[in-house]
Structures are given as structure tokens and as C-alpha cells.
């Protein structure tokens, strides 16, 4: 291997420069302010934990193990790992240090996460995750609260047209264990085929009775009607009624689809999950759903949450505020400078005479009396 060229970063990592670095910070702040205004209190777990803490509890997301960047702690000789996701850490806090707090417990978080490998579509390995978790309930009211919160956070970040895809992560498993039996050793294969909506594969695997689920996914109203028409029995119909209640609570300007078989990344979620899409952003901008946290004594507590990656929003060009940078010539009084900052300017003090405002990316120059726009 040759010497590393100055500036070359490892695969999947990058520097954020002005103004995108500022945009990322502003977007993170905006999302956290929105959730804080709904009573979600911030927690800040560490970047690194014992490997087993990150893979236990909520970390049961399929493949979570494979996402960890591990190393041995030179002090304790135990395996440590960088967090690939903060949701699990928030769950750990709720199940340990905040186990005695009244439920529902509302927590929020934001910070960098690192996964050992990017995906084909998103090669980034480091991302900024932000989210909110409501711990102690996964009922219709709790799910509705979190979903509306996610929508509000994204809309205030500047995404006006949102599309929510509601998923039923445990639906196929329940069907397989009930009215639409599948041999135990075939369930995973059927799940995988449904993930790819692979109709031909389902037929070849002898599970063609699951095809109506693929045909049913689409706009929520039609999808719910199609699922009800399958007459799956009272337990399923009650579940669908709950889903319909959640869907009905969404604002009219949000498009809602329903996908009963979707499992992409919803491995650890229970009766309902959601992914949020927006034009101009590749893939999802946010996702969440109901799940369970395992306490140290083994009991499981219901929860619902959402999280998003700020990076996708930055890449979509959001969070940029019009720069109001003013160049202060040498000799500008401190009082004048303070007044300008109080009025919302970013002041850039020249340290030499004849400083070029362009070179410092200034939009204005202070002439001692007023701000002069620079052409």
C-alpha cells in the first residue's frame, strides 16, 4: 500500500465544509427543538460502548451485529464497539438508569453514528442520527403522537411534500403462524421473497397464497380495503382498524401508502412501522415504529420511536440560510460590531487594510455608517 495522499479519507467518510457543515448543525438543532417542544427530553449516550450492550436489548435489529466497528479496549481487554444507532442506547437508558421514571418516558437524542459498511445505495459510514422515543406504550395514541412528531420535524426542516409508508412488520409472521401456514423452515425464505415483492419466487416456493399481500400494497385506503377483504379473522381485523386510526390522524397534505410485507430495516419492530419519503431525497428521510425494549430482568416494555439521518436532508440542500456576512474594516469600533451581531449579522473583522470582501465570502461591507451590499 502506498502512502496515504494528504486529504484522502477512508471509504464512506467525508469532511463537511461551509456552508453544509452549518446546515447540518442547523437541521439537527431544528429537529431536536421540535421534539423538545413536545416534551421529549434529551439524552446523550457515549459514542463507544461494550459490544454486548450494543447488540442486546433493542439492538436486535437484523444484522445489527454485522454493522459494528469493533476494537479491543487496551485498558480492560474487552471488546468495544462504536454505536451504529442511538435508538438502542436510548432504550438501554430507559431500561436501566431511568427505569424508575414514570411512563410514558419521552426521550430524544442526536449525534454521530458509525457503521462498519455502507450500503450499495448509501456508501456513507458515518451519519448524524436524530430521533425521539416514547417508552412505555405502543398503542394507537402513542404511535400517532410519534408519527405526527416525525412529520412535523421533517416539515419544519423544509420538506413540504411528504409521503408516509406504513408497514406491518409482524403481520406476515402472524399470518404464517395462523390462517396462512408456512413451514417453519420456509418462513425466512418467504419473508425474503416478500421483501423483494418477488411474485415468481413466491410461486416457485409454494407460497403463492401470499401474492394478494403484494397486490394490496399501495395507497393506504385501498390497501386497507384489500386487506379487510381477505377476511383474516377478528385479531387481524382489530389490528387493521388500529392501523386505519393511525392513518386517519395524518394531515391531509401527507400522502399515505400501506405495505403489509415491507421488512427493510423493520426487523425489530412489532405491529406497526413507518418510513417517510420526500421528493429530492433518495431513499427514506425518516423511519420509526413500535418495538419492545428488554429490561435487565428479562421483561419487555413496549415503545415507539422515530429517527432520521440529518445527512440526507443536507444532501437535499436543506438547512442553508442566506449568508449575512459583513466585513468590518480595520478600526471598526467594538460597539458597532456588537450592534451588527445583535441585528443578526455575522461579522468578519479585517485584520489588514484593503481586505477583499469576496475573499472572505462576505455579502456586505461596513462603511462606518451602514452595511453596503457587495456586487
Amino acid at each position, binding site marked *: 500500500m502506498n502512502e496515504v495522499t494528504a486529504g484522502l479519507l477512508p471509504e464512506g467518510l467525508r469532511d463537511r465544509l461551509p456552508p453544509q457543515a452549518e446546515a447540518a448543525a442547523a437541521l439537527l438543532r431544528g429537529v431536536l427543538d421540535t421534539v423538545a417542544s413536545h416534551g421529549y427530553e434529551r439524552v446523550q449516550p457515549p459514542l463507544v460502548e461494550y459490544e454486548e450492550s450494543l447488540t442486546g436489548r433493542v439492538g436486535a435489529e437484523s444484522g445489527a451485529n454485522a454493522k459494528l466497528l469493533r476494537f479491543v479496549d487496551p485498558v480492560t481487554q474487552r471488546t468495544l464497539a462504536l454505536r451504529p444507532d442511538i435508538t438502542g442506547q436510548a432504550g438501554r437508558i430507559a431500561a436501566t438508569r431511568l427505569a424508575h421514571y414514570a411512563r410514558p418516558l419521552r426521550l430524544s437524542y442526536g449525534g454521530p453514528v458509525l457503521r462498519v459498511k455502507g450500503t450499495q*445505495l448509501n456508501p456513507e459510514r458515518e451519519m448524524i442520527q436524530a430521533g425521539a422515543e416514547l417508552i412505555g406504550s405502543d398503542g394507537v395514541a402513542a404511535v400517532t403522537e410519534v408519527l405526527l412528531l416525525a412529520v412535523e420535524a421533517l416539515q419544519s426542516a423544509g420538506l413540504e411534500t411528504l409521503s408516509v409508508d406504513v408497514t406491518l412488520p409482524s403481520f406476515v409472521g402472524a399470518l404464517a403462524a395462523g390462517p396462512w401456514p408456512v413451514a417453519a423452515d420456509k418462513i425466512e425464505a418467504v419473508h425474503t421473497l416478500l421483501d423483494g415483492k418477488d411474485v415468481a*419466487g413466491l410461486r416457485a416456493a409454494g407460497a403463492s397464497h401470499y401474492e394478494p399481500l403484494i397486490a394490496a400494497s*399501495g395507497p393506504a385506503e385501498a390497501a386497507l380495503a384489500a386487506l379487510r377483504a381477505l377476511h383474516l379473522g377478528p385479531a387481524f381485523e382489530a389490528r387493521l382498524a388500529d392501523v386505519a386510526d393511525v392513518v386517519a390522524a395524518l394531515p391531509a397534505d401527507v400522502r399515505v401508502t400501506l405495505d403489509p410485507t415491507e421488512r427493510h430495516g423493520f426487523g425489530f419492530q412489532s405491529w406497526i412501522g413507518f418510513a417517510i419519503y420526500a421528493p429530492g431525497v433518495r431513499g427514506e428521510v425518516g423511519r420509526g415504529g413500535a418495538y419492545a425494549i428488554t429490561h435487565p430482568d428479562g421483561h419487555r416494555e413496549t415503545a415507539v420511536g422515530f429517527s432520521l439521518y440529518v445527512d440526507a436532508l443536507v444532501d437535499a440542500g436543506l438547512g442553508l440560510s442566506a449568508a449575512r456576512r459583513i466585513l468590518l474594516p480595520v478600526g471598526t469600533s467594538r460597539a458597532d460590531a456588537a450592534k451588527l451581531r445583535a441585528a443578526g449579522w455575522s461579522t468578519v473583522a479585517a485584520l489588514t487594510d484593503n481586505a477583499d470582501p469576496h475573499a472572505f465570502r462576505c455579502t456586505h461591507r461596513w462603511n462606518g455608517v451602514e452595511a453596503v451590499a457587495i456586487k
Partner: protein
Amino acid sequence: MTDEIIIALPKGRILKEALPVLARVGITPEPAFSDENSRALKFSTNVPGIAVIRVRAFDVATFVAHGAAQLGIAGNDVLMEFDFSEIYAPVDLCIGRCRLSVAEPAEQAANDDPRSWSHVRIATKYPNITRQHFAKRGVQAECVKLNGAMELAPLLGLSSRIVDLVSTGVTLRENGLAEVEVITEISSRLIVNRAAFKTNPAVVPLVEKFRRAVADAAA
């Protein structure tokens, strides 16, 4: 135009069979599309808001996975090789039928005992499928990636076996090769980008049209 739908079609073998399917759905590309000499890459159709592109079979999956095209037509060989999580394959178009098979020189096939293999060297366009297929049987497959003319590899000693698409078997026989194992049956699928499926209101009805067109043709 954010809501334009682009359908990626594979050049070559499947294209001839794909056009009648498109026609049954009511989509006819502009005449230049069928002109082999046309250098255009993107073509309009009789349906406003729907355009088609003509790319290599493997690239159809890549365009659709990344959302550069919303729909496409691809064989399950391509889908299995890439295993893109962002692609749905909701309709089997029942065209482009063939199979993906292991082949080797006929005289070698006569004396070969696959039970004793621990390592095989295989020339193929499908290294991922090949590796997985043999790994499942506990055999390590060392793949030499070729983009065409696979049949030459055993003749010239590049590898002793190949994994390739077989439809009639004539090409294999003409080159002294015998098909020893079928890995999977192949047919072409309508593929859809996952995000487009969720967010573009025109996509689901279009998929439904394809589904009906195939069902009507089978009936």
C-alpha cells in the same frame, strides 16, 4: 419534471419479447427506439410522462435500484447477481425464459464426481450467484469474471467449468460442452424502484396494468 416515469429496457435478447408486453400495457416507444442505428439513449412513448431507455441488461437493475429509472425489465439472473434491496419484482412477465446452468467439457462430465469437489474454477458473468451456489454445497468456487463468450474458457484452459445462461443448449453442444447442473430457471420480471413504488402515485396503477396484461395473455 419529477413525476416522469422512466422504464429501463434491456438491449438484446429480451427486448424483442418485451415490446409486445409493453404494447399490451398500451405503451409504444417512438419509432427511433427500434432503429438500431439511432444514437439516442432516451426515447419518448405514446403515453405522455412515460419514457424508455435502452441499456445493458445488468445496468437495468442498477438504474432502477438507484431510482434513475422507476421501472425496468430484468431477468432474475440479474436480480440474483446484484441482490439490490431497493428493487421490487412484483410481476413475472413470463418472457425471456432460459436457465442458468453449470457446464463443462462433455468428456470431463462423463468421468466427474461432484461429491468429491472442494474447490472449482469457473468462468462466468455471475460470480456472486456462482459463489453462493457452490458455497451452499460446501464447495469453494473461484470465479473468473467474463462478460461474454464463456464457452471459450474451457476450450482454452482458462477454467474447467462455466456458469452461463442456456436456452436451447445448441451453443454448448457446438463447443463440446455438456450442461451438468441447473442453478435456477430464469424469466424476465417487471422491476420497480422501492421509493418510486411508495411515492409516485402513477407507479402502482402501472404495475397493476402489467399484472393484468400478463394474466390476460396467460388466460
